[in-house]
Every structure is written in structure tokens, then in C-alpha cells.
């Protein structure tokens, strides 16, 4: 049984049919990536899983439990956490308060402190900036804070939306290394990326989305070698 499974999910924005039958699965401890152009439905897929949007038909299963139509604040408790597109840190809360919000559902104070230290080990910059409010951080720091915040809920599955957006190439590499680290520590990751090359270099498997449909799926190696993927998403180098 897959850890996370979407079965024929259809999601609408009003009358716009954004997801037109998405079926995919994520196994425990995998990094799975969704790649595709702007507007293909990558973020919508993540938002539908995390409960921010509800599918009109189809079902979503987490370890055998059906979770579509569960409100987002309940889904967090079930072990899914999302690092949202555009980072969206709380700009008027301090770095520490942002992280505390990430641990909102938890009550194990001692373990929360430990996890905060763990986040600070992953992102040492955040430790220095603990007392600063989120809005004063640079883009890269905000991305780190956004990821750290999502990790504070101790997720089984980490949904990560466009972590490389707007970051300098060096920073992107650092962030992707950290994603791999998080995965090695046992967290399953579903990664949405426009930077398909980077995403496929760390993912185990991937899916290609086009206009709300999955047009291709396979191991990362297969996708990297696929001529259509190469032409459309990997810069056409063949």
C-alpha cells in the first residue's frame, strides 16, 4: 500500500477545471517530484492534498485513511505538512514564533525544543535570526524558515512547493541538498518544481503534469532520459 495515494482527483477553481483526474502515489521514504509548466496544476495538487482545496470527485488516501474533505488543520495532525509556494512566512512574527506556529498541533514541549534545534542545525542562519521578524529576512532565509516551519510539525510527508523560486543558483543547490538530508532522516517528500533538472537529480520518481493531467510517470532516471521531457523541461539539451 502506498503511503499517499490520489485516485482520479478532480479539483475546480469555480468553473475552471484545474485538476482533471490526477492519480499518483508516493511510497514511504521516497522523494517524488511533480514537474510541469506554469498552470499545469502542480500547486493545486499539493493544495488539494493538504486540504486547502477540496476535490470535487476522486479520493485521497493517507496510509489507508481517506483524507479528502478533512479540513487542513486536521490534515497537519495526520502527518502531512506543506511548505507553500512563495514561502509565505508570517512576516510580523519572529523567526522563533514562526517555528512555534509550525509546531502548533504539538504539546510535547521538550520534543518541540529538540526539533527546533534540529531545524537550526539544518539552517544555522535561522538560529542567528531567531528574534528577527520574518518580513526582514532575505528570500533565501524566508525559504529556509518556511521549510523549517513546515518541519516543526514532524511530518510523515513533506509537501514542498517550488523551493527554488527566485533564489540564486548557489542557494538552490544548498536547499536541494537540505531536502535530500531531510529525506535521509526518514521524511517522505513530494516536491513540486519548475526547475525539473534539479528536481529529477534528487528525486526517486517523478510525474509530468500538463494542463491538469499526468502525462508521464516513472523513475527519475527514466524521465531524465525521456526525449520529450528533455525537450520540454530540461532545456532541450539532448
Amino acid at each position: 500500500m502506498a503511503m499517499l495515494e490520489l485516485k482520479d482527483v478532480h479539483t475546480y477553481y469555480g468553473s475552471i477545471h484545474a485538476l482533471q483526474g490526477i492519480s499518483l502515489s508516493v511510497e514511504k521514504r521516497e522523494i517524488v517530484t511533480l514537474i510541469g509548466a506554469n498552470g499545469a496544476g502542480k500547486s493545486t495538487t499539493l493544495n488539494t492534498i493538504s486540504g486547502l482545496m477540496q476535490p470535487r470527485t476522486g479520493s485521497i488516501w493517507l496510509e489507508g485513511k481517506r483524507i479528502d474533505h478533512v479540513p487542513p488543520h486536521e490534515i497537519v495532525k495526520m502527518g502531512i505538512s506543506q511548505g507553500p509556494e512563495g514561502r509565505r512566512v508570517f512576516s510580523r512574527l519572529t523567526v522563533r514564533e514562526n517555528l512555534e506556529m509550525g509546531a502548533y498541533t504539538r504539546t510535547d514541549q521538550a520534543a518541540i525544543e529538540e526539533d527546533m534545534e534540529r531545524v537550526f542545525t539544518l539552517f544555522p542562519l535561522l538560529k542567528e535570526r531567531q528574534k528577527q521578524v520574518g518580513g526582514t529576512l532575505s528570500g533565501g532565509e524566508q525559504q529556509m524558515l518556511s521549510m523549517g516551519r513546515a518541519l516543526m510539525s514532524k511530518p510523515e510527508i513533506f509537501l514542498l512547493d517550488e523551493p527554488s523560486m527566485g533564489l540564486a543558483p548557489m542557494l538552490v543547490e544548498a536547499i536541494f541538498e537540505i531536502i535530500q538530508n531531510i529525506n535521509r532522516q526518514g521524511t517522505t517528500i513530494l516536491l513540486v518544481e519548475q526547475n525539473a533538472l534539479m528536481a529529477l537529480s534528487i528525486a526517486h520518481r517523478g510525474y509530468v503534469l500538463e494542463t491538469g493531467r499526468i502525462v508521464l510517470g516513472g523513475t527519475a532516471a527514466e524521465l531524465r532520459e525521456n526525449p520529450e521531457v528533455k525537450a520540454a523541461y530540461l532545456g532541450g539539451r539532448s
Partner: protein
Amino acid sequence: MADAAMADAVQLRHKRFFNLGRLVRPTIGVLVIAFLMWRLLTVLFIQQAYGADTWVRFAVSGIILGSVYAVIALGYTLVYGILFMINFAHGDVMMLGAFAGYFTLEAFNGAGILNRSLASSILSITVAFTVGMLVATFVAIALERIAYRPLRTAPRLVPLISAIGASLFLENMAQLVFGAARHTYTNPEVAKRNIGWTLMVSGKEVLITYTGVLTFVLSILLMIGLYILVQRTKMGKAMRAVAEDKEIAALMGIDVDRVIANTFAISGALAGAAGVMWGLHMGIVYHFVGFLPGIKAFTAAVLGGIGNVPGAMLGGLVLGVIEAMGPAALGLPFQLKDVLAFSILVLALIFRPTGLLGEVLTEKKA
């Protein structure tokens, strides 16, 4: 060609209009300052109408009034901070709190507890505050549930209209249930409205009433309590998170509906306390008693920077003092104190729409 000429003409008109617009603010500013200087100089140095004792009296009553405004203003600012909505029924929540306190004191008086001993008087007042706050909390939660929550996704004007409707409903409901007569608050003998400490200022007595001191001290305690709640507690942090981004707050596992309900509950409790303070200090309650303090507190919240907690406190105190001292300082009839208060609102909106402590809301960072 004709089109181009038209476009030029339109642009010219815009330009002229724009320039005129740019002149308006400095002109108003100069006029206001000139008026203030003229009146202040006349009153303070030429007429010398009032002695120091009178000024102290005005200041004391202003600070007390201002502290009540501040407590009410906190309710506006909390709700605005989280829903970007002005809860125009907030003053009427205060009115119901005042009535709840009134009936509690009446009941204690009827049972002969109110004046039995100092302890029983203190107990009566404590219970009056508790009941007033509980009733107002309940009303505020019900308001949110019935009048605002169903409209959460509607355009921003819609809940505003609903708030005005709720305000009218509560006022008329209160008139129907409690009658249109003005009720006099039954203070315990130890806290009558005309007794207190006396202060000697330039040889004259200035009375500082016990109710006034109680009002001021309690207001300050409530403000400190609220500040700690919002800044330090988990609930307060969740409130700030929800205020900033409801979607992300939900992704953190925060139950947004519950946080909003809590916010209304807190704002209601503050209004209830303000209502009982108003009753004890001012002495009169009736169905319309919440209207003017409500609008004044709204002014205070805007003056301080709406959505900003310390701003509401500062705005309330400043407004109270201006209202109490302003007419005398400017040599105006005292009936014009409300005009003065609302002129402050207009001036704040013209010159500093973000309020004294407000921040400029920038576009969200991508």
C-alpha cells in the same frame, strides 16, 4: 487626431485636478494649526479663564474617559486585525455588558448584600464585572456566529452592512426588553460616584473619585493582560498568525474558525468590562448608551492605527484627554466636545491614515 486632442485635454484636466488635490492637505493643515494657535493663545494667555485646579480636573476626567475608550477600542482593533472588518455592533455589546452589570448590582442590592460590609461591596462589584464580561462575551460570540461567519467569503462591504444591522438590532432589542428609560447604576455606598480622594491644586480641592480610579486601574490591567495574551501566549501567537495569513495558519494546524471566535470572545469581554466601568463611573445606562462610546472608541482605534494593539490604547487615552481638555483649551462650548473628537478622526484620516502607531501595509512579499 481628435482622439489625441481629447486625450490631451483629459490629461490636462487630470493634472490640474491633481495639483489642486495636492494643495488641499497643506491648506487644511495650515488652517488647522493657525486656528489651534489662535484659540490656545487666546484662552491660555489673554482670557486665562481657568485656574490650574480646573485643568487638573479636566485632565483627570480625560484620562479616565480615555482609558474606557482604550478598552473598547481594543475590541475594534482586534477584530479588524483579524478580519479587516469594523464591528460596528461593538458599542452595543458594551451596552449589554453595562446592563448585565446593572442588573447584577440591582440583584445584590435587593438581596441586601451590596452594602452589608466592605467585603460584600467588593464582592458585588467583582460579580457585576464578571457577569457583564460573560454576557458581553456571549453576545460577541453569537454575533460572529450569526452575523459575520456566514459572510466570511463575501466582499468586504457586506459584513460591514451586517454589522450595522446587528448594531440596530441590539439597540432596539434592548429598548424592547429593558425599556427606553434611563437606568441609574446602583453603586455600593463605598464607591458612590461623588466620593473619592481629594487633591489640592493651587489651594483648591480636586476630587478624584473611587470609581474613576477603579476604572483607570482596571483598564490598565486589562490592557497589560491583553498585551501579554497577544504577544506571549500560544493563542495570541495563533491570533497574529491568522491575522496575517489564514491559509498558512490553517496549514500550521490552527483552527482558524476557533481563533476568530476567540478573538470575538476577547473583544466582547473587554467591551463588557468597559460597559460596567461606564455604568459605575458615569452612572447611567440605557439602550443607546453604547453608541457614542462605540463610535468614539472606533475613532480612537483609527487614531492609534487600526489593527494595532498599543495604538488602540494610545489612541483611546489621547482622544479622552483631547475631548475633556480640548473645548476648554480652545475656548469652545463644551457641547462641542463630540465635534472635536470626530474632527480628530477626520484629521487623522487626512494626515495620517495609518494612525499614530500604524504601519503602512505593503503588498505581500512574493
